[in-house]
């Protein structure tokens, strides 16, 4: 049975594997402050959600709770499908050349030196930077490298925390296209950003509606 599943192509696999996020009555606390509460939403395969709101309202915390990296103060989150995360930390060894730093994640994700990986690198404009140590890369270049790592992970649920920071106009379009294609293939994207992220069929979640002081007023 598992052999049969493994032999399927990525598209069929996408159609088969269940992908969803269900957030129910979620509350988040940082220190002794409750950032937001009674947050509920559901995302099904192919849907995208932008979490909007001013700095410090808990966008990153929400993403970390969905990823299972931070505990929920109240409520519950259930995620079906593998989760990939991009945040402000590149998770690439600063001393290593970019190619080897990405190859480490490729080895963990069972990627090998596949043609798909090199295609992703060329598409993200990283092919010429593979010999450059990660610490010499600019913010935007590191962000593109993180996108390459995310693509290699082949996860169903993408959690993108400020994915457009430091990206130039061309790279912003590229990031939007890549996310669009991910959703079209049956994936889910949750984007925490204060910048506009142009995506067809994207819902916007204003997190300030769930902040405590707003409801008290």
């Amino acid at each position: 049975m598992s052999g049969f599943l493994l032999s399927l192509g990525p598209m069929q696999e996408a159609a088969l594997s269940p992908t969803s996020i269900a957030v129910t009555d979620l509350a988040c606390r940082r220190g002794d402050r409750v950032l937001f509460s009674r947050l509920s939403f559901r995302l099904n395969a192919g849907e995208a959600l932008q979490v909007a709101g001013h700095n410090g309202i808990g966008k990153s915390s929400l993403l970390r709770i969905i990823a299972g990296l931070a505990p929920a103060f109240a409520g519950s989150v259930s995620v079906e499908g593998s989760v990939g995360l991009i945040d402000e930390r590149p998770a690439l060894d600063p001393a290593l050349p970019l190619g080897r730093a990405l190859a480490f994640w490729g080895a963990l994700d069972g990627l090998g030196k596949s043609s798909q990986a090199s295609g992703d690198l060329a598409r993200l404009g990283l092919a010429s930077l593979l010999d450059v140590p990660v610490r010499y890369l600019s913010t935007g270049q590191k962000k593109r490298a993180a996108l390459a790592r995310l693509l290699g992970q082949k996860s169903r649920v993408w959690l993108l925390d400020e994915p457009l920071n430091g990206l130039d106009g061309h790279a912003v379009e590229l990031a939007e296209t890549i996310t669009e294609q991910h959703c079209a293939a049956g994936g889910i994207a949750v984007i925490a950003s204060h910048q506009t992220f142009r995506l067809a069929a994207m819902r916007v979640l204003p997190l300030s509606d769930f902040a405590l002081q707003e409801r008290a007023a």
Partner: protein
Amino acid sequence: MTGRITALLRRDLTRLLLSGRGGGAMLPVLFFLSVAMLYPFAVGPDAPLLARTGGGVIWVAALLAAILPLDRLVEPDIELGMFDQWALRGISEELVIAVRVIAHWLSFGPPLMLAALPAAALLGLDAKTLRVVEIGLLAGTPGLAALGVTVAALTAGLRGGAALSGLLVIPMAVPVLIFGAGSLGTGGASGLALTAAASLVLIAIAPFAGGAAVRAARG
């Protein structure tokens, strides 16, 4: 699973053994040798005294050398977000810490055992003492490695964590030191066996204590 462990171990070894910036495995070895070199200068060229106390000096030097790389064992990976990415891939903190104990031991245990040969020559140890020292180091350094990784995980993210981790390692390394250096006096296998036992306890605790510490450090 095996492929993932191999990838983790290879990365850890490259970082700890060869890394040019952190000094790699050379820094603890040079520190160890410089202690062995300074000791005869400090106590004078009294051959019987050196031979009698030299084994203990080697043990103290090995313990202090094991403290040097502590600040780059766990904290850089937390800062880089590596542990979060591993967690998303279902790689537990316990596994990462266990692999890191192995890599940390490989990066300082065998090099120190090699460096103990010239150190023994500097201190004028006889062959029998040297043999007990080498076997003792083989039994004791894995425990020191496990202790080092545990403490590095506990102090990761704290201000002044590097200095604090050194202070925390020293008292907890006392059992290994007592049995390891004590076996020199008796020359017996019982001391070595107790050194290995203390080591095993530390190794058994390390993945769980270290993994819990990394998870607790996650905000």
